[in-house]
């Protein structure tokens, strides 16, 4: 770290915290009158770097005179690298790695070895990493490094340890999901990014219990190689000497066999606010979470949004806490803010715990405060800057903090001067900048709201804020659908499995061209069952027809009738063949079997007699659907996007020539069944 850059940070700290010294003046009558003298310039200890011959990057913070050493060994591989059918693998791996020891020193012996030296070794994991952290007395460093290398080179993962760890973690998930707050927290990412995103899978105790030793070993070999490793140490150390020692110890470690990084997830923002209610019958309180897209740390808006978050959402002292918690007394534990991401956009999250009877008022108060929060005063901005300045000072508070800061930057591939640049940006932020960033990045009209509480007390009242969906968290669990990889790629191309599997119904305006005539229609397809309604405009009049379970009906302005069974069956077959119903059923992976054809096409079948050959275009989306053994096909084109869903706006049937032009497509994640009733 260069002195010049740090001096910039120090100068800024002095600017925002300075004032006249008041050492011998009489006590102030109020603390706001107390001025502060400028802070002295602080130059953090330098960080030394080496790229070892074995390929490992090394960071060292020398700390003269310290008898303690702290070390971090991180791999660029975390829960996001788990196979989709091995959810929960990495946390089990982390704990089983530590508890199980190595082939040469079992877990019990490793414990004894470490305890005798007062050394600690822990493994922690997150979406992007597996990290081994250790502390020891300086005189024991060589031994500890050898133990760490041994653990990584020949991990034991004893089956019995794996069984105990996975059971413990499965129970931990169950315990967390029994708590409304824990459940609400675990729902944020799946609902924000889609449960099929590797960064956002919903924890599944059953999947954890299905893991075995072979899974852990396979992941270890695939990902925990020295080529994905970053090492950091602080203590009384010579970097050159340490580099030589580490090279000798780490060179024997294998390289990772897997290199395919998971794609960062994209936030799935609804077209308008959507409220997911998770029913907790009889609960007297509701956990609320309000979620919106965020920004990357490197985004220019990250600085103004950080200050805004501090003003708005600081626990206990922010505007939200003041107005919703202290003044209106509608909730407790109120907090909010943007949580920028290192490698992805991050998100905005607001939280509150409210009595179930106050949930509606609480949400209204949160939205009102959020909606009125564009403008911040200069005084508020100065206070937020002061908080941020102190937080940045804490980030270099001693060698351990300096190591952590440098380590995080290196791990995520950020330049080492990043925080200094961020500080410089913070210094320049004005109240106008804050308002502009908030206006660009935040809207109270398109939030994902999570409400865990008694559904019967929540649903009606919350409907005034947006679409209400009663969510069963089990629907978010990834399932082994047995489908070929081609299906996953296809679903990715049209919005993702999670998005389509959450769909409940489709409302669409479709112009139907047949036999040289156009019939404007409005259609409602309930994707969960045999329910459908189509309103045709025929010569200025509306003719409605539809399905309601075992009956098919038609109604005009002056007549209504039930239709013959043959018509009903035809309607039902057509409904089951509609592209969006096929996509929905593929995403659910429940009642539609998919296999790979000899040329890479996807063969679809169900028990009701549907048999479709689906071919995919160059863009990965479906291009044709062939029915009746190829006697009838439909071509899908003119793909458009609505609320994250890709849908074909033009569908042409061959040889009949009938064409459907989708002029408006509205995916519904909640659905009022009254829409299906014949018009009165």
């Amino acid at each position, binding site marked *: 770290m260069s002195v010049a850059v740090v001096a910039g940070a120090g100068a800024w*700290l002095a600017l925002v*915290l300075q*004032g006249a010294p008041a*050492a*011998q003046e009489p*006590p102030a*009558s*109020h*603390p*706001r009158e*107390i001025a*502060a*003298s*400028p*802070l*002295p310039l*602080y130059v953090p200890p330098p960080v030394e770097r080496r790229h070892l011959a074995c390929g490992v990057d090394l960071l060292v913070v020398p*700390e*003269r*005179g*310290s*008898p*303690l050493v702290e070390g971090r060994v991180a791999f660029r591989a975390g829960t996001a690298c788990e196979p989709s059918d091995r959810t929960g693998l990495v946390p089990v791996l982390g704990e089983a790695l530590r508890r199980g020891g190595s082939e040469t020193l079992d877990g*019990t012996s490793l*414990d*004894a070895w*470490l*305890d*005798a*030296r*007062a*050394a600690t070794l822990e493994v922690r994991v997150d979406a992007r990493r597996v990290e081994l952290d250790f*502390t020891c*007395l*300086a*005189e024991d*460093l060589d031994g500890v490094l050898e133990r760490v290398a041994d653990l990584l080179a020949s991990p034991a993962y004893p089956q*019995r340890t794996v069984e*105990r760890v996975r059971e*413990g973690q499965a129970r931990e998930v169950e315990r967390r999901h029994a708590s409304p707050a824990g459940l609400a927290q675990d729902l944020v990412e799946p609902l924000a990014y889609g449960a099929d995103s590797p960064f956002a899978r919903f924890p599944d105790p059953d999947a954890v219990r299905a893991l075995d030793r072979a899974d852990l070993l396979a992941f270890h070999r695939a990902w925990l190689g020295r080529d994905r490793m970053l090492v950091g140490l602080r203590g009384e150390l010579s970097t050159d000497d340490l580099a030589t020692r580490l090279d000798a110890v780490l060179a024997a470690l294998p390289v990772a066999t897997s290199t395919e990084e998971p794609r960062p997830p994209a936030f799935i923002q609804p077209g308008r606010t959507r409220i997911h209610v998770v029913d907790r019958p009889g609960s007297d309180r509701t956990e609320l979470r309000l979620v919106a897209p965020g920004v990357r740390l490197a985004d220019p808006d990250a600085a103004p949004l950080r200050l805004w978050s501090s003003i708005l959402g*600081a626990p*206990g*002292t922010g505007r939200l806490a*003041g107005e919703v918690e*202290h*003044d209106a*007394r509608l909730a*407790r534990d109120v907090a909010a803010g943007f949580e920028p991401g290192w490698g992805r956009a991050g998100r905005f999250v607001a939280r509150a715990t409210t009595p179930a009877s106050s949930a509606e008022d609480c949400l209204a108060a949160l939205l009102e405060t959020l909606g009125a929060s564009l403008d911040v005063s200069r005084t508020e901005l100065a206070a937020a800057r*002061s*908080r941020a*300045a*102190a*937080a940045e*000072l*804490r980030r*270099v*508070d*001693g*060698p*351990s903090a300096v190591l952590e800061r440098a380590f995080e930057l290196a791990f995520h591939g950020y330049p080492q001067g990043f925080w200094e640049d961020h500080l410089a940006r913070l210094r320049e932020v004005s109240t106008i900048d804050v308002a502009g960033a908030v206006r660009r990045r935040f809207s109270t009209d398109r939030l994902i709201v999570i409400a865990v509480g008694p559904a019967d007390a929540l649903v009606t009242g919350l409907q005034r804020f947006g679409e209400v969906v009663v969510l069963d968290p089990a629907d978010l669990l990834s399932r082994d659908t047995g489908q070929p990889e081609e299906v996953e790629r296809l679903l990715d191309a049209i919005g993702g499995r999670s998005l389509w599997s959450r769909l409940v119904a489709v409302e669409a305006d479709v112009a139907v061209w047949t036999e040289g005539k156009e019939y404007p229609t409005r259609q409602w397809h309930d994707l969960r069952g045999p329910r459908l309604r189509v309103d045709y405009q025929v010569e200025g009049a509306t003719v409605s027809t539809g399905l309601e379970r075992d009956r098919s009906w038609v109604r005009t302005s002056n007549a209504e009738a039930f239709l013959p069974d043959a018509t009903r069956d035809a309607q039902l077959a057509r409904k089951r063949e509609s592209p969006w119903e096929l996509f929905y059923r593929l995403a659910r992976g429940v009642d539609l079997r998919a296999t790979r054809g000899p040329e890479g096409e996807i063969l679809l079948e169900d028990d009701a007699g549907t048999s479709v050959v689906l071919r995919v275009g160059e863009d990965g989306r479906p291009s044709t659907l062939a029915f009746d053994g190829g006697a009838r096909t439909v071509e899908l084109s003119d793909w458009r996007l609505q609320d994250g869903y890709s849908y074909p706006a033009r569908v042409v049937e061959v040889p009949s020539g009938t064409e459907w032009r989708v002029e408006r497509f509205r995916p519904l994640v909640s659905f009022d069944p009254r829409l299906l009733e014949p018009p009165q």
Partner: protein
Amino acid sequence: MLASILVPVLSLLAGDAATLPAPSASAVLEALEGRVRELRLQNGWTVLMVPTEGPPLVSIETVAAVGWVDEQPGETGLATLLARLAFQGSDRVGSRDWTSERVVLEELEARHDELLRARGEPSLSELARTEAGFLAARASAATLADEGEFRRLLEDAGAAGLGAEAGADSTRFSVASLPANRLELWAWLEAERFRRPVLRGFYRKRDALVEERRATIEDDAFGTLYEQLRLVGFQTHPYRHPPLGLPGDLAAQSRTSAARFFREHYGADRLVTALVGSLSVDETAALVERYLAGVPAGAERDPAPRPEPVQQGERRARVVFPGAPPALAMAWRVPSLADPDGPATEAALRLLAGARSTPVRARLLGDEPLALEVSLQRAFPGERADHLALVVARAADGVPPEDLERAIAEEVDRLQRSGPGDDELAGVKRQALAELLADVADRSALARRLACHEAETGDWRDGVRRVERLDEVRPADVQRVLRRYFRARGRTVVTLLPEAER
């Protein structure tokens, strides 16, 4: 920071050695002696200042030698409640209009008194009327309060890690990190906290604590287990007081009675503050003289509670809690920190269940696991007086608590008979030393260690000396204390079962 404190000592120790040897606790004490500056204000407030190198930040720990032990019958839970009210401000901080708020707060007390009287009368309509009057006054008071201001002033100045927590022996008021140029602001507010506190929001916080008691003790299996452990393990000593009070005690408290408790117990003579970080001793001393010297001393301190009578036999309790995981708490009565047997007792406990490889943990969590979790508490609930040392274990599936009890007792017996090996004891001493070194390396942890020991034993050095004393313990000492204290007669066992035995 560790380096800045220890460098002179380590330089001598290291000589030509390639790697630094770990300093002894005595060397750490010597280094600290050269750094810690003590200041005793006329009102009795003790201030410890430790200047260190590093960024311009200071960690501050104020410890009041007041805890659950100071509560009299009927007022249990007050120490915890007052800690929760530590950021509510004063007449000058936290009020939107003090002149009006004072009147409303007095009115609120009158309404509360009226409510208490009405609760003893048969008339439901009268009760409803007074309840409505009380709630209206409470709402009125809330509109005049700015309860976040005290905390906001500190946080806007860059403070982090603000907290207040009551324990059995003492109560801690923490600022983990404060920019060094805002010490005057902290001193102003700290004086305000102890000199002119206004317990605004009292009834809301009190009721929240009553609710918390219900959720974390009455409706929680392990909360109930710990409560029974206190009540069975101590029959007369106030260590039996639950942190959230005995049922009914808190609900009967008023803002007036709590304020009286505060005035009597939280005087300057019971306060110790440690400031560690980038500070000038002279300037800091001048600041604390100016602001803190005006805080009055408290009422004359009650004599220490009478020690718990010698336990004459094993005590047992069985908690039946629907759906609870079977578990066991096995506790032994052990001497206070100051007792000559204290270090050997600490060594014995560390040897039994302190680290992962110790016999109790290895036996319960090993290849044939009897337990899912094991924890050791060396000092429950405090250590200023004779207290309990306990092992708590949550049984593995199908394992009855009796098996846990038998396994723990066997490991205790084994260590009693064989005594620890020299290597085992050396490992324990090394662990205590490493913990001390880690604390010295952490500004906030050092402030806490110094302030807590100064408040509880009268000398901050005891925070280091306990490691020194541990270093002198021999295997025979461990065997002796195990035989003296870890026997069935001084044992308290509480089992947690999911359903009653038929």
